[in-house]
């Protein structure tokens, strides 16, 4: 795996395997005044502003240790380098899983996912990583090993450093180990796809589901060419024209699933869905993979979090704003239960990216919202902050950074507000 980033190539790459090695590697780089960027599986390492300096990569892929799973307590503790898929495979043997879903699980690591606040379609029902982290071990910039929280599902003891470090993109310390609360695997799962000719109908059905009597595991509303592709991937014939596809995954016992399927299909019919299909396991997997592949292959992607209704109107306004200014293939995915919008631009020249990105973010800024440009070329990073403005708390955030990493050893300049 390459450790180069935004035009920088580190002169040193460390692969710590033990906590002592990690602590001493970071401590000595800190002492030598070097700039350090920690790496996990590399799936989200590109998110962030251009570093102000980058001397050393600390690659945690060998920092795997023992996974401590207590099925009866529904908790797990794992080191940063453990792959999400490895963890979920182990948990599944006891009928459990991580409550949150992470894209590219066979590559993504525990540490990288926590540090970058990674997400997946299930955020619609179970929320984000921050909601399930119960404890953490953090190696501070000078190599000091610290911890917060605990290993029990419920704990309030001291400041919740584990929440502060979730999504801090490794700017306050290296997340070396995390403890999570778990959930049981549902006995049955079922995916349904529905498609609509206009946003309003799709939105009505989607919102009626996430505000209804049961929360589907995932409720993703897809627009643009990806909508047609997802329908095709699920084995149905692709509709023509502008399409909004609603991909819904249900979980529960046999009788419960039966009722949920009826309710979902009924809501679709009442709102004039163009078509629908209750998918086989393989068709469901193909449909969800179509979304993940589109994210992996996108040249430019932006994630917005806002009120659910605002994400859908923004999805529409972004598509019209961008397609009028550039010949680009823009697709959107709204995770309705969460209020997240992912904007994917499939085929764009680097030279157009700055303009396209600015028109996407200016549409987002019309709402109370937050965003991060997750994928983009260097030209975009050179032109702006990839994170949305943090507002009046920027000074406090800088003071926090200064308390934990006063010499700017970790990920310098890469965070929101160029912290």
């Amino acid at each position, binding site marked *: 795996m390459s450790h180069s980033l935004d035009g920088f190539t580190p002169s040193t790459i460390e692969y710590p395997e033990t906590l002592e090695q990690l602590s001493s590697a970071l401590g000595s780089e800190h002492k030598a005044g070097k700039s350090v960027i920690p790496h996990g599986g590399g799936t989200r390492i590109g998110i962030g502003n251009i570093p102000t300096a980058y001397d050393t990569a600390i690659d945690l892929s060998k920092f795997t240790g023992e996974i401590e799973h207590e099925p*009866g*307590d*529904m*908790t797990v503790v794992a080191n940063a380098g453990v792959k999400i898929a490895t963890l979920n495979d182990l948990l599944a043997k006891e009928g459990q899983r991580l409550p949150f879903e992470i894209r590219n699980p066979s590559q993504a690591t525990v540490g990288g996912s926590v540090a970058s*606040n990674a997400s997946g379609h299930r955020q619609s029902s179970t*929320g*984000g990583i921050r*909601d399930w982290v119960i*404890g953490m071990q*953090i190696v501070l910039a000078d190599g*000091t*090993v*610290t*911890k*917060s929280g*605990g*290993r*029990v*599902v*419920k*704990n*309030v*003891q*001291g*400041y*919740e*450093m584990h*929440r*502060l470090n*979730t999504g*801090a993109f490794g700017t306050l310390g290296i997340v070396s180990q995390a403890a999570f609360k778990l959930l*049981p*695997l549902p006995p049955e799962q079922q995916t349904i796809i529905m498609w609509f000719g206009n946003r309003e109908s799709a939105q009505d059905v989607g919102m009626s589901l996430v505000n209804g*009597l*049961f*929360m589907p595991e995932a409720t993703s509303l897809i627009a643009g060419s990806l909508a047609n592709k997802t329908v095709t991937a699920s084995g149905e014939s692709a509709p023509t024209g502008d399409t909004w596809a609603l991909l819904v995954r249900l979980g*529960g*016992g046999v*009788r*419960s699933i039966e*009722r949920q399927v009826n309710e979902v299909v009924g809501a679709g019919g009442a709102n004039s869905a163009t078509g629908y299909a209750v998918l086989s396991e393989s068709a469901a997997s193909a449909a969800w993979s179509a979304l993940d592949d589109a994210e992996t292959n996108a040249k430019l992607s932006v994630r917005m*979090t806002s*009120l*659910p*209704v605002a994400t859908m109107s923004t999805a529409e306004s972004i598509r019209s704003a961008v397609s009028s200014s550039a010949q680009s293939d823009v697709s959107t995915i709204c995770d309705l239960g*969460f*209020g997240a919008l992912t904007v994917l631009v499939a085929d764009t020249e680097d030279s157009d990216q700055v303009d396209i990105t600015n028109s996407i973010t200016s549409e987002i800024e019309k709402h*109370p919202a*937050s*965003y991060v440009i997750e994928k983009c070329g260097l030209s975009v990073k050179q032109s702006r902050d990839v994170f*949305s403005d*943090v*507002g009046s*708390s920027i000074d*406090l*955030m800088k003071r*926090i950074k200064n*308390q934990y990493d006063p010499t700017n050893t970790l990920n310098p300049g890469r965070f*929101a*507000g160029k912290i």
Partner: protein
Amino acid sequence: MSSKTLASSSLISDLTNVVGDQYVVWKPEDLLVYEYDGSIDKAPPQAVVLPSSAEEVSQIVKIANRHGAYIVARGAGTSLSGGAVPLRNSVVIALTRLTNLIEVDAVNRVAIVEPGMINLHLSQKVSHLGLFYAPDPASQKTCTIGGNIGENAGGPHCLALGVTTNHVLGLEVVLADGSLTWFGGTQRESSGYDLRGAFVGSEGTLGIVTKIAVRLLPKPETIHSMLAAFTTMDAASDTVSEIIAAGMVPSALEMMDRNTIDAVEPFYHPGYPAEAQAVLIVEVDGLKESVEEQTETVLDICNRNGAMEIREADDEETRDKLWQTRKGAIGAYGTIAPTYYLVDGVVPRTKLREVLQQVDQIAVELDVTVANVFHAGDGNIHPAILFNERNPEEVKQAILAGAKILEACVAAGGALSGEHGIGIEKQAYMPLVFNEDDLEAMSRLRTAFIGESPEDAPIGVPSLGERFNPGKVFPGGAVHGEAYGITAESFRPTGTQDWQ
């Protein structure tokens, strides 16, 4: 015990200028009620001020800064860890006038409330929209949402739905310099550090919350509550384990022991079997079909473990009755002893049985009466140590028993607190879980929030690093039970139990 110092007349007049005469309390006899909260600790404030807006809170903080006074934000004063006790002769900012529901967005399921709003009132006010606010601490009829933010409060239903931090989207906060800022917003995630996550559960030491954006949830279609009586605690504990092992997360899993049954029997006359040593409440909710499936499983497990009697409720009236003993248990302890010390500790669910046995042994060894009512589903135990506060020896034994129980929780791999917080009560025990580096890292967060002493602070004022809620959370700030003559030497943790 802290000595009483009256506020200077210039401080009183500055405060009066902001909120008016009737909302500044400064006469010693009027201040008495603000010395206490729900814990056994107490200390006198120098003044209490009741603002009516965030802007007034901001002005009060600036005034306190100028006068070099510490500040304690107070909601309903139901804290069980001394969180609202004003150490260091603080000025108390009581937020009980800030009770408004500012905004409800039913489609996006978001509400914005003021911190003085009573927890239960929010659910009542959005009930007609088919929504509710999930965190439901036992004190929800009186405790405030602002206080819940401070303590990251839980409740019986947080087993399935999570604690306060899982339901808070954004916070408007008055910082140490009196400035107002928002952490997060109405969306689920915000750019930059998760300051909301860092603030919730910080026990009022980092700032004062003046507005709160929360998530609301749709009310479930069906709720089914079951109550089962068992001849042994072990049988009840096994039932809990088997329910979890069956791949279920009930919305509540609550347990009461024999002493608690004895306390509630004369109050509520539930008529539990005379031989019952434990009563378990299991509640499942969701779609009718899902509830039916889960109910079958739960009843089967209860019967397999020899339940002597099972009661069920699927309408609100019957359910309230079924829950009455659980929710009223703490109050009913008054029938056994004049005072209770409600301990809050967490153990891994799989160690529940073992730690409960240790709690029994501790009670015997120290000759104290302990009654248990607790959140079995998440291993959050609440042994209530019953004593007479007029007997100094009993007080000392109660505090010692609490310490031993927490030591046992930590030794079993658990936590010092599940939902009551550290406050005054548990700060001396923090080294059982955290080493110096851990605590130092936490204290840096407070330094980042509080900053240096403000430029206009008079020279020679006491250290303002603890401007908000001084003497709490970190070891050495105060002595639990000091009001009863307990000294720091009365209890020293016997060793540190590393989390690793």
